């Protein structure tokens, strides 16, 4: 009885997951591999054959490749500073965490309010006389501005989640390791790279995987700032599902996102692997 108890307690949650996650997930897998009741790979050929696929794919990858490393560096820097604070630490963490409380669509809209033709940016630049009439920043002629705006919005929105995880991870590292490194001649930078970072690997894994998965699913922010001008994988999934009413291709897109997520998670796990016995 005693040994079965934990499993029994977990049973409702497990059942819930099985029914409401794995079952629909299985349906999506089947959907992506069938068309009109027949097993086929046609959904995938249709998907890759469409001119927007490769743009959406690479936009998503580039967004991730730029946003995640920038966030990682910022989160590490901010966490290191927060870690050193003696007072006001909790307050600062709350401030940094504010964007976390905002949905991604709202975040997109905040930045839209800044960048749009009648937005804050134009008002400010105009007020200072830098420009003489409002500029169109988010038009299809200047894709890179949309891209940049999306990057900014994403960084603003989701750096805090990494920071919070990293601050918690840093709190778990006993200070004596840093002291030992200091006595044995390590500079502040060396202590960071030789002691803090390696001991932070478990937290970095969590933060990176969480953040990379979020990045591959970027959608609402892009929609708010660029509509379909800047296609991304999740946006295309939405388009095929609801605009083009082709559930098969939408399912194929979902599979691509899943594949990317799994692949990158494995890469992160592998790169930041902590050997047995080497944990704190």
């Amino acid at each position: 009885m005693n040994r079965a108890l934990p499993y029994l307690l977990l049973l409702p949650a497990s059942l819930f997951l099985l029914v409401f996650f794995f079952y629909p997930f299985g349906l999506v897998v089947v959907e992506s591999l069938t068309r009109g009741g027949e097993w086929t790979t046609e959904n995938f050929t249709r998907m890759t054959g469409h001119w927007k696929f490769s743009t959406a794919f690479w936009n998503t990858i580039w967004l991730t490749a730029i946003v995640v490393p920038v966030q990682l560096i910022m989160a590490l820097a901010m966490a290191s500073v927060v870690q050193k604070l003696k007072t006001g630490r909790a307050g600062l963490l709350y401030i940094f965490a504010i964007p976390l409380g905002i949905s991604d669509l709202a975040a997109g809209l905040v930045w839209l309010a800044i960048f749009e033709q009648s937005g804050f940016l134009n008002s400010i630049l105009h007020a200072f006389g830098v420009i003489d009439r409002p500029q169109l920043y988010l038009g299809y002629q200047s894709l890179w501005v949309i891209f940049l705006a999306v990057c900014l919005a994403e960084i603003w929105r989701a750096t805090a989640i990494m920071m919070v995880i990293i601050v918690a991870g840093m709190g778990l590292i006993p200070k004596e390791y840093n002291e030992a490194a200091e006595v044995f001649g390590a500079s502040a930078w060396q202590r960071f790279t030789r002691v803090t970072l390696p001991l932070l690997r478990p937290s970095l894994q969590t933060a990176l995987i969480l953040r990379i998965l979020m990045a591959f699913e970027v959608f609402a922010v892009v929609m708010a700032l660029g509509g379909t001008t800047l296609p991304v994988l999740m946006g295309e999934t939405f388009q095929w599902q609801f605009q083009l009413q082709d559930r098969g291709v939408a399912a194929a897109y979902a599979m691509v996102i899943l594949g990317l997520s799994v692949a990158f998670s494995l890469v992160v796990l592998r790169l930041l692997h902590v050997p047995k016995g080497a944990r704190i």
Partner: protein
Amino acid sequence: MAEIVIKGVAKQFGAFTALHSVDLTIADQEFMVLLGASGCGKTTLLRIIAGLEAPSQGEVWIGGRRVDHLPPRARGIAMVFQNYAVFPHLTVFENIAFGLRMANMPQAEVERRVTRTAELMHIGQLLKRYSGELSGGQRQRVAVARALAMEPDVILMDEPLSNLDALLRLEMRAELKGVLAQSKTTTIYVTHDQVEAMSLADRISVMNGGYIVQADRPTEVYRNPAARFVGSFIGNPPMNFLPASPDGAGRWRVAGRVFDGPHAEAAEFAIRPEDLQAASDGLNAEVRVVEPLGPHTLITAEVAGQPFRAVLESDRQVAPGDVITLAPVPDRIRWFDPETHKAIA
């Protein structure tokens, strides 16, 4: 050349004073042991010398250079931490090599030093392991090896052998002493094991409640305690103390017997348990507990209502309840001021 001078160093943690104005000079290549009960400030003093803690007042000089404003790595020291601080993410080899790598030492030299110190600490076969795969005693030896590998001018050791079994400890103690003497290192060694202190030290600093009570050669600390605390802390069993009342100039009545003593207002009589001989004339002691220890027999008795211990030859037959006469060896009797607890010459 690494003489360490500590001038008026004090440390407060909030309202709590961990160190009261400590003055101490440790000569170049000297082996200084800090000895004291738990919580008396040994680690705090060591951390101040290392630069991990800033003194509230006072100065620290190493090798003729004032260092209290310098970061730890600029002080030319190596340290063995009380809680080891062996890096969990590095193998034993890389742990020992850590300081050498920071100093950009060539790989061949790193390997030579790591292998040598690891052999010395009997952990040569563990070089590929991580610290999570070591026992507490093995981890401790890694910490010692890491410090020795630096071949520093000054080495600070905070209870480096506390976690080893008695036999290994004896062996390591001897090896440490040999290595440190050879390497011309100035050593500060913290322990609360007095046997270790006696056997290793050139000088012992006895600490109590944030003060250094006495800093002297081991025999001196043992034979001539500068304060009552030193006598009661050092020696196993510790010194016996008995109240004394004046009985003419320079003569004192102790437990009904009269002894020659100092010319003073008041005094307390003290004698080490091994400086007592069973004789026909001496202090009357009523035996309470008899503990045969092999070569000797430890007796806990009562003299004039005070607990009193004596170490006797093991062939002497005594039983609880016996009344025996114990004669103090005259030149081993010590006197303390009952007010200040300082020794009276």
